[in-house]
């Protein structure tokens, strides 16, 4: 039986290695493997994959349709249809993006695919930049989709190739599940040649499959079950075996992903390298049955190391397994070298290395100096001290520092929550000012259905769309308003104001986000509208381009200074939180930090004593 070698495909002669981020290695490999459609929605830690597809296609001349879709569900379905035409396809997202795409994901397992279809779902054990720490492999298990768990960028690249082959062999979607420490690791990675696949679109009509009604679904479910059973019987996906010296024949370690890489490093650090049998699992679901039986029949104690959930542990069962469920491994969280050092030492009966408490301190993230969101949040807090402020996911979640973000749940939830808060309070009569904030990209992603629903059900609240004309948090991907695709090609722009009106909104104002007096006036006017007899949802689009974009950098600057009039009340430092302002201890007053101030001049409107001045031309 041939076993797919993870050392292959190596760089052919003439092609060298390159220092690549894990996400860049994945994107590059998708193009090498002949993927003709890749779709994604940005989210840490998956954001760089699609840009790498675009770059590799550009560099190699490969014909690829790469798109930033409006959300992960749309991305999934678009790529799936390309696969149904017999063409290789991929979709990339972060783990919570897979929740959004869960509906098509589950059904795709039943109906299967034609051209190889890779679902890249990037997990964030820790979590470092996510609202949950969920394990996408558990969704793969629930959906009955095979999942590959790369240890590092090199292996992520190889698994793209192997995953697409596996997908075509079984006509199943295959999940590639990297974690933050693979996505955002850089490594010397071999480059492969691009092998374009000449596969013109060919959709074979088969309504019993592609439009399967429940009576067909029963049959398809059996077929899925059979595919999985056959796949799990393949010895070729057996884990990589690193035999120990034989001193501990009753014990072995089973590990996958970055946890396996760090476990190997920590065994070396503990002076225990090669002392115990070590199985490095590459496909944690379905675990190959012959291998499971062999391991359970051979060892009395099996230490399972995986992130973040117990996927292999669930399949290996209780009894001999030491893992997250049995308590030998922390029940959740990232398996850092420090955690692994303790776990491995305990398992091997060695003295645990001393690990001090994790370092505390550091500075929290904050909105950039000159960010247009800051002034809007300040105005919200000042205008409605008793307000309720549901918000959403993006840079603007940092409005929490300014006391103007009360909730952050999942993409688009702020608008639905605002409606829910209104209905909850209105049931008792009066309602407080409710002001939801959402970024432009998030509004396109999941805000539109929520807004239609709120308008239809006559909720009364203010929605502020913070329009910085980009998807800032994840690295400035274009939004549908801009009229340019991920590949820099012209697109049909879909503008926010038209969308908002089409959702049935009767009160819409657009304002420059730096103009605090006007923002405050409109907020009051919007509140009056909400409470009027014909009132409903009032929408304010507050615009200022993100300062990290070329358009933002072109904005006019001011020379800003704090005058002798400063009374030292610290209002600007505490309520406005801009790193362009600092406290001068010796003088007992605020001052501009010339290194960080970008000269937006918005703080002029913030000083109660009128002691901040700005003149044009900074």
């Amino acid at each position, binding site marked *: 039986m041939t076993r797919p070698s993870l050392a292959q495909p190596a760089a052919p002669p003439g092609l060298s*290695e*390159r*220092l690549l*981020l894990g996400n860049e290695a994945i994107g590059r490999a998708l193009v090498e493997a002949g993927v003709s459609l890749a779709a994604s929605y940005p989210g*840490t*830690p998956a*954001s760089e994959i699609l840009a790498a597809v675009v770059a590799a296609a550009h560099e190699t001349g490969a014909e690829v349709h790469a798109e930033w879709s409006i959300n992960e569900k749309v991305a999934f379905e678009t790529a799936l249809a390309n696969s149904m035409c017999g063409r290789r396809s991929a979709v990339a997202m972060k783990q919570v993006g897979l929740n959004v795409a869960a509906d098509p994901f589950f059904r795709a397992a039943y109906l299967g695919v034609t051209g190889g279809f890779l679902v890249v779902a990037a997990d964030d054990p820790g979590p*470092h*930049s996510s609202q949950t720490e969920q394990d996408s492999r558990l969704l793969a298990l629930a959906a009955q989709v095979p999942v590959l768990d790369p*240890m*590092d*960028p090199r292996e992520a690249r190889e698994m793209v190739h192997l995953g697409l082959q596996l997908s075509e062999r079984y006509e199943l979607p295959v999940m590639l599940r990297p974690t933050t*420490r693979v996505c*955002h*690791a*850089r*490594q*010397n990675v071999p480059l492969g040649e691009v092998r374009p696949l000449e596969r013109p679109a060919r959709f074979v009509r088969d309504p019993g499959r592609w439009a399967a009604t429940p009576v067909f679904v029963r049959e398809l479910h059996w077929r899925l079950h059979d595919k999985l059973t056959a796949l799990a019987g393949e010895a070729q996906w057996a884990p990589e075996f690193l035999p120990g010296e034989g001193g501990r024949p009753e014990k072995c370690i089973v590990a996958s992903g*970055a946890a*396996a*890489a*760090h476990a*190997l*490093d*920590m065994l070396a*650090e503990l002076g225990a390298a090669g002392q115990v049998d070590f199985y490095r699992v590459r496909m944690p679901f379905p675990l190959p049955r012959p291998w499971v039986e062999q391991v359970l029949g051979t060892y009395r104690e099996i230490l399972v190391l995986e992130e973040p959930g117990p996927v292999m542990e669930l399949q290996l069962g209780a009894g001999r397994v030491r893992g997250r469920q049995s308590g030998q491994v922390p029940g959740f969280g990232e398996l*850092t*070298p*420090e955690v692994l*050092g303790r776990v491995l030492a305990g398992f091997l009966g060695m003295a645990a290395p001393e*690990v*001090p408490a994790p*370092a*505390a*301190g*550091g*500075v*929290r*993230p*904050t*909105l*950039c100096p000159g960010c247009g969101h800051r002034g809007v949040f300040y105005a919200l807090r000042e205008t409605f001290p008793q307000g309720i402020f549901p918000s959403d996911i993006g*840079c603007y*979640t*940092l409005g929490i520092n300014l006391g103007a973000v009360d909730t952050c749940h999942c993409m688009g939830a702020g608008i639905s929550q605002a409606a829910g808060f209104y209905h909850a309070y209105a049931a008792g009569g009066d309602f407080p000012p409710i002001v939801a904030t959402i970024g432009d990209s998030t509004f396109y992603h999941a805000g539109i259905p929520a807004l239609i629903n709120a308008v239809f059900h006559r909720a009364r609240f203010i929605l502020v769309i913070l329009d910085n004309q980009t998807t800032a*948090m*994840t690295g400035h991907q274009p939004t549908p308003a801009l009229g340019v695709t991920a590949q820099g090609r012209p697109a049909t722009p879909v503008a926010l104001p038209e969308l908002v009106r089409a959702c049935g909104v009767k009160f819409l104002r657009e304002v420059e986000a730096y103009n605090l007096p006007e923002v405050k006036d409109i907020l009051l006017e919007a509140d009056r509208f909400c409470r009027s007899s014909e009132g409903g949802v009032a929408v304010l689009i507050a615009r200022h381009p993100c300062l990290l974009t070329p358009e933002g950098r072109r904005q006019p600057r001011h020379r800003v200074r704090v005058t002798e009039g400063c009374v030292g009340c610290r209002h600007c430092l505490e309520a406005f939180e801009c*790193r362009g302002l600092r406290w001068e201890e010796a003088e007992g007053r605020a001052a501009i930090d010339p*290194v*960080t101030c970008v000269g937006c001049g918005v703080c002029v409107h913030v000083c109660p004593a009128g002691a901040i001045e700005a003149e044009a031309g900074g």
Partner: protein
Amino acid sequence: MRQQIIVSGVGGQGAVTLTRWLGEAAMLLGLPVITSETHGMAQRGGTVISMVKVGGFRGPLIPWGAADVGLFLHGDNLAVHGGYVRPGGVRVVNTQAPGAHLGLDALGAALGLGLKPVAANLVLLGYAAGRGVLFCGAEVLAEVIRQQTPARFREDSLLAFGAGEAAAREAGG
């Protein structure tokens, strides 16, 4: 050659860039390398840490107390990440404050040359290379910067790096 390096800073100071140049330097020398970076919300002005492991390592993270070298782009970060550097390891710090480290006012040097504040990262890198504490010499890193930096930033980047190197020579390094 095996070396583990942490790069500690605040989002926006260019820690990721330094990490990348160190990785590219390892590539130029033909050494296997794996690095880890901070992306996402922390990049908006929060405390960040990157790691570089040169030589035969598998995973990208460095355990607490195991780094050979720490590059600190912000003096305050010593309190947070200082312990990543092993006993006997070297801390290179962007600071005027004295202490058990190799200190340089990299920000002051960058601004003194009329460069943007972010150039302090390359001043500090040049200083560390000049003091001879890195796995590679300054000429390797200078070559990386020449090769990898877009033309419009190249001259300023080399100026900043060179200023750090010069400061190291003055310090007797």
